């Protein structure tokens, strides 16, 4: 396991994340891990007791986790959203836009490459779960 990349100022949550099923059964967990097949909307009634949601990417090509992340952010979740698993440098910028603010990749990422990835896009075309202003809004501001 590689180093945790975290873009938040609050304390790191150190409770182990439980599965969605376990989370729904047990009322005291505050960290949960979503697998690609889980429905992120199952968590919506319990957002206030969540401090950490891990979204697992068993293979980088399985993009369901991007939707899970956005759904949580759209519903107002503002705790830590951490992408774990097969998280590669070329996916970071999109993940960030979908609301992830922490990354725990299986493989250590090159620091310079990570920084380059986040600085890559001068603008964005569409709105997502981050607070960047889309080009089409800027054009008509």
């Amino acid at each position, binding site marked *: 396991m590689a180093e945790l990349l975290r873009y938040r100022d609050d304390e790191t949550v150190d409770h182990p994340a439980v599965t969605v099923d376990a989370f729904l059964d047990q009322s005291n967990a505050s960290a949960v891990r979503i697998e690609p097949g889980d429905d992120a909307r199952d968590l919506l009634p319990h957002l206030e007791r969540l401090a950490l949601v891990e979204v697992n990417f068993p293979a980088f090509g399985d*993009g369901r986790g*991007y*939707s899970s992340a956005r759904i949580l952010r759209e519903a107002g979740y503002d705790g830590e959203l951490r992408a774990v698993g097969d998280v590669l440098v*070329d996916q970071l910028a999109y993940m960030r836009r979908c609301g992830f603010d922490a990354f725990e990749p299986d493989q250590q990422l090159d620091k310079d490459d990570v920084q380059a990835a986040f600085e890559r896009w001068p603008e964005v075309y*569409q709105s997502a779960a981050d607070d960047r202003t889309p080009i089409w809004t800027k054009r*008509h501001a």
Partner: protein
Amino acid sequence: MYKYDQYDQAMVDARVEEFRDQARRRLEGKLTEDQFKPLRLMNGLYLQLHAYMLRVAIPYGTLDSRQMHALADIADKYDRGYGHFTTRQNIQYNWIKLEDAADILADLSKVEMHAIQTSGNCIRNISSDHFAGAAADEVVDPRPYAELLRQWSSFHPEFSYLPRKFKIAVIASDTDRAAMRLHDIGINIVRNDAGELGAAFYVGGGMGRTPMIAPCINDFVPLDRLVTYAEACLRVYNRYGRRDNKYKARIKILVHELGAEEYTRQVEEEFTLLLDQGVEPPFAELERVRTFFEDPLFEADASPDIDRSDPDFALWVDRNTVAHKADGYVSAVISLKPVGGIPGDATAEQMRLMADLAKDYSFDELRVMHTQNIVLPHVRKADLHALWTALDEAGLGAPNLDTVEDIIACPGLDYCSLANARSIPVAQRISERFAKTGKTETLGQLKLKISGCINACGHHHAGHIGILGVDRKGVENYQLLLGGSEAEDVSLAKITGPGFDEHGIVDAVETVTTVYEREREDGERFLDTYRRIGMNPFKEALYG
């Protein structure tokens, strides 16, 4: 035509640098081929039979002479002097080096072009009606909507790792010239009884190994919700499209398995939630984009007359020009299907000539057709003879639009690593055969489409006559299909029976045309006759 502003340019330039960096990391060994592949595919770079292949997007099929010149220069500088225009209004170069790929993308960006999302499991280049802005029958020009969707789908953070590729087509007329219902999403811009414009959404069409015709899931999405609705369609697909089996991963399978009604219900639910999220562009953006597609300054008194005294010219006019909304103008089709030629291929020289002719005679605009031909959309009738003379001298004057010689063919086994059989030689032999027997003209409209494997890049399911290459114990074999259509009378072709070898398939095509000639009634196209009399008479003639 749409013109980039500093934002569009900055995005395309950033993409070039991103790819340059990715290619460098690949060459340095920081990326494995497995990791690099989806990244290069999202920039249109394949590894094909002989080299890397680069697919360049021509958004909604529209380009100007400067861009066509740039495509020609790329063919000369980085490839072997030619390119292949495809059924999705793209161009492919077959002999590209990975080392050069980023430089090519940089050259493209200088003329506001790119290869972004021309492959990979993401939203692909958005295609449209090749007569957009010129067709006499359109409700509005569909391209502003396609451009809006281009921006929305470019670098979409949520939809770049979809279960499978995703193709969108936008049209705005009852006549479908873009195979709209054979796309993952087909959008038809319509006007309702109140006179307002809206978008009819057809979702879940496609070809490939399980061809399906998209059902209409919403017949009127207001234009100020277009992007939000598309976002909802994609989100349901991204979450629930199958990922366990690559061959069942297209949205058509999801829509089919859920049923159109249940899929629609889920989309509407998602749509309602997304309405609060501010994903829709400001309406002013649509208005801004529209200004780029205003009519050129057509001459009000352009002459309606054409001097038909040269019979070769008159034939070309009859076959290759199409009614225009402005009096005294037509859209002229440049056939890339010379008899015995390679469908869709054009040399750099031909590209330059077409570019110059567009400048002289068509308000500097060209279009790529899904039938792998080029259109000059706005030509004065008075200029047609000069245009035709120049085309004819360059071998681009074939008078065969929509005839049996106007064959769609994928690259097949000559270029494609997925192929089972060659497509191009079959197309060449068929056009030679019909040109020799002189039957091309009398057969009228006859759409023949050839794919070298089940992936159906050559639209064989949608051919009045379709041909599918298969591998029969290591030998090329060809199945014959009849009765497909990609147009507004969309239908899927059916296989006649056992396949044929390379020579047999040419004879078989001739045989079915003979049945048509025998059976046809007044004014019937091949397809109409087939639909009236059914498969049996054709089968009898083929197999006895």
